[in-house]
């Protein structure tokens, strides 16, 4: 029986003045404190009684984490406090990383995206996180601050399970950085929900392709599947087929089938595993076909 609190349960709101202070507080209160930025996930889970935190630490905007910047040499940096609407409306993001815009705009509603952030979406590590696929195919890295030292975390090894990541108490992700996308790349994000937009995904597929002379096919594809495994899933076998075989409709069908075979989704309240599997195949085929037609 789901019987949430009528409002948010008691907690203490903490607003540190620096990342260092925030990190120290979080490390000292490892089991009872949690950082938040937009709070769209955290507040819901607090109300549901799933999270029972004594402290919520507001890390928004500390030490310049509310900036978004594009450098034509190094790429895009999206600060942890930058909301999804700002990302989607940013002209350089639209120009160089359109798939990130597509993914960000698919999340819930405009008013929720005024609060929701891409870094938050990544850190919550839901297999259905809508911007994670785009962040992965774009080779995103997280910048992690910790009072004991700063580091970078590639997304490829970041996710450990639903809601589980490599982050440790005291870690604060301050930004997600995207290198310049590969020359001539095209990308596509297709999300299937119950409603046309705004729903959590039953399945989502993100595909990025670009000309690559090292690949036998002359093209390299990156494919990430959402909502079909405990973590966002790289469809490696499908990627391999598209790299190794001359690309044709038949190759795409074969790759899509490989994507379907590579995932073992579950039945849940949103969909059966069986439907998910077929949708992985069909949406992968659609997304790869779209990308391929643009690459030609």
């Amino acid at each position, binding site marked *: 029986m789901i019987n949430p609190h009528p409002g948010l349960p008691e907690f203490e709101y903490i607003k540190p003045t620096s990342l260092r202070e925030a990190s120290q507080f979080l490390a000292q209160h490892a089991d009872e404190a949690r950082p938040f930025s937009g709070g769209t996930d955290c507040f819901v889970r607090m109300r549901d009684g799933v999270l029972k935190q004594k402290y919520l630490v507001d890390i928004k905007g500390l030490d310049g984490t509310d900036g978004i910047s594009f450098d034509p040499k190094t790429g895009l940096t999206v600060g942890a406090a930058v909301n999804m609407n700002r990302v989607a409306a940013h002209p350089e993001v639209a120009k160089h990383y359109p798939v990130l815009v597509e993914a960000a705009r698919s999340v819930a509603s405009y008013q929720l995206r005024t609060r929701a952030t891409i870094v938050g979406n990544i850190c919550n590590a839901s297999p259905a996180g809508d911007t994670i696929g785009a962040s992965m195919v774009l080779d995103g890295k997280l910048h992690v601050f910790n009072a004991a030292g700063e580091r970078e975390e590639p997304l490829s090894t970041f996710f450990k399970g639903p809601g589980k990541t490599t982050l440790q108490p005291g870690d604060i992700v301050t930004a997600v950085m995207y290198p310049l996308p590969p020359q001539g790349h095209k990308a596509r994000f297709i999300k299937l929900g119950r*409603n046309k937009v705004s729903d959590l995904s039953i399945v989502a597929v993100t595909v990025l392709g670009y000309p690559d002379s090292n690949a036998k096919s002359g093209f390299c594809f990156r494919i990430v599947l959402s909502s079909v495994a405990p973590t966002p899933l790289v469809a490696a076998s499908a990627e391999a087929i598209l790299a190794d075989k001359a690309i044709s409709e038949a190759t795409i069908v074969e790759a899509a089938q490989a994507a379907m075979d590579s995932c073992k989704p579950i039945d849940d309240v949103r969909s059966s595993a069986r439907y998910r599997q077929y949708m992985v195949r069909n949406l992968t085929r659609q997304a790869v076909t779209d990308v391929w037609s643009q690459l030609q």
Partner: protein
Amino acid sequence: MPSTSTLGEKTKGVIGVDMPRVDCHEKVTGSAIYTDDIQFGNQLLHARIKRSPHAHALIKKIDTSKAEALPGVKVVVTGADFPKRIGLYLKDKYIFARDRVRFIGEAVAGVAAVSEEIADKAVDLIEVEYEPLDPVFDAEFGASPEAPLIHPDLADYEVPNFIFPVPGTNIANHFKIRKGDVDAVWDQCAAIVEYKFRVPHVQHVPIEPHVAVAKMDETGKITLWASSQSPFAQRNLIAKSLGISESDIRVIAPYVGGGFGCKAGVTMEAMPVAIAMKAQGRPVKLRLTREEEFYTNFVRQGLIAKIKVGCDKDGKLLALQNTMYWDGGASTEYGVNITRAGGYSGTGPYDVPNVKVDSMCIYTNHPIGGAYRGFGMSEVHTGIVQCMDMLAEKIGMDPVAFHKLNCVEGGDIIATGMKMHSVGLRECIDKVAKSIDWGNKGKPSAPNKKRGQGVAIMWKAPAMPPNAGSSAWVELNEDGTVTVGIGGQEIGQGSFTVMAQIAADSLGVPFEWVRIAGPVDTQYSPYEWQTVASRLTWSMGNAVRGAALDARKQIIDMVAQAWNENPEDLDIKDGTVISYKSEESISLKDIVVYGIPKPGFEGWVGGPIVGRGNFMPTYVTGLDKETGQGQRAVVHYTTGAQAIEIEIDTDTGKIDIVKAASAFDVGKAINPSLVKAQIEGGFVQGMSSAIFEEMKLVEGVMQNPNFVDYRIATAVDVPRSIDAIIVETAQDDGPYGARGIGEHPMVPTIAALANAIYNAIGVRVTNPPLSAEKIYLAMLDAGIVK
């Protein structure tokens, strides 16, 4: 003194005209008051409810001591405090569970504290010991002798004489129709269709969750403020259950933020009243969370329907058999009448000579079934109309032609033996078919799309006690304006606006002069049974018209006396009394309160004008328990048709509605714009329930009690436009010929969509929700996609 004559100026009509809503300015500025908006100050206590985690169990012990000891807690109550049963039709429910719980979420105890947070904590401190019992989660199984009994005391429950419980079973009502002899004619049928349908539980989903505040004063009088469709029914039922007199409970009902039936009868409103009786005069507010709104309140019952229908070689229906198992839930206090309505309308709007209907309301350990927009009808039509589509195909007829051949018309003797009044159903069918260019599907927009068209028809009668009544008063003010007292609610449908139109026209004043006396308050407002059953325009409209005509007569008699004229020569136009004979005129201002001086200061005539009116149908008869036959089962039927063209994405199973047309015979549209708004809104609610909605109940636990996983249609999901068509075949006893339309527009939508899906892909997906997943997997299993 009479002013200059205004004769010759035409009063602009207000009937059949799109007058603006009387409530819209308040609603767009945030000043409209809903129950949760009323300010009660610092004395307000907040209630929370301890709920059963068991679907079926005996309560062995409740320990409230820890909750009572929590600082800030003022009241803790349990079922032990309130021993009398409550219920609209069948009194089978307690305000708080007593010896046994029957569904997950049932109220076991209530707490009031100085804050919602403390009340919430206190609820966790209440300890309840249960002894689990075997549950029933399937209505068909529940009807069988093997099923555990959920209400062993059914024989003792108070019940009206038109509900037929079967004590010793879980059958709370068994409604039957036996007309002609179905078994004798199956052999004569050229085609027969037999099919079993399942319609899931769905929720109403008003955007405003249930909320109620109650207070008992020092003299024991109670005031209840509630988001309510039924202030008078609540007064009556709560008073009876708590052992107090009706007039000692005053119900004040502000604007309702969406009802759709879930705020009819009594659901959670009795709880704050019960708690307030022990709160030493402090007001107690209970506001349900969205999650509680989903699984603790009335739901639309699930239905299993086994239907068999046959026709002759020309497609004319010969026999119909419909056996329905309604999943009534833990209490069937309201549900018994839903299954009765499902029973007497169980043929759908078809003329069938031989009919056998069994409509059974079954106790289960699911949430309690209640009224939902057109109760019983969406569920019944889902199966019946799809069967007609199947039968049309089997006999080789176009579905539109089949429906036109078999649809009910004036003079038919329908399944209950009642003679049908004249209806424009055939016209509705023709108009929707024309609107979507029936038979000429558009070309699919892409190679992976398939197009389909579907049609469905419907009927529905106001389902209510035979003698549900309405009353109204019309009072005139010094400035000539008119205050109309009514007890029916504004729940978004526009009833206040329509009543203002009726009063303005009947009295002869400008629409802008009419004020509706709101909020409805049982202390001042005249009696109204409930705001349900699409009955207000018709029933309350008659009462308002009567009251306005009464006031008009008083005014005309007064002026006639003052002017020494014949009342027949006088009229009221645009707020002015005029004489066609003397060509005198006088404004209503002042005279309607102060009267009129006689010439030469020889005294006065008249006095404050107050008109009264009431309406109650007196002609509805009972139906025989074994055959369901009687003179007149219902007051009337509203009928209509829908046609839809859809496009299905064969890669995903997703449906896009390309064209939608919906036509209803409303008798007379008093405000065509509001009628069309009901047709559009109802279509979308129907479409939403058809495609998205289902309470996913697993072992009695709702898996999706929130908007994250109970999806409803959003602005992006709905069609660009809906052709809302009004047909007008006058209702003989309706004001201006009007009959109801609030509920009907959602009734045929599931069937229309299901028929369109079949037309598009050639495989039937019959049981809602007609989700993309179901459609895709059906195509896959049928080999239509690989």
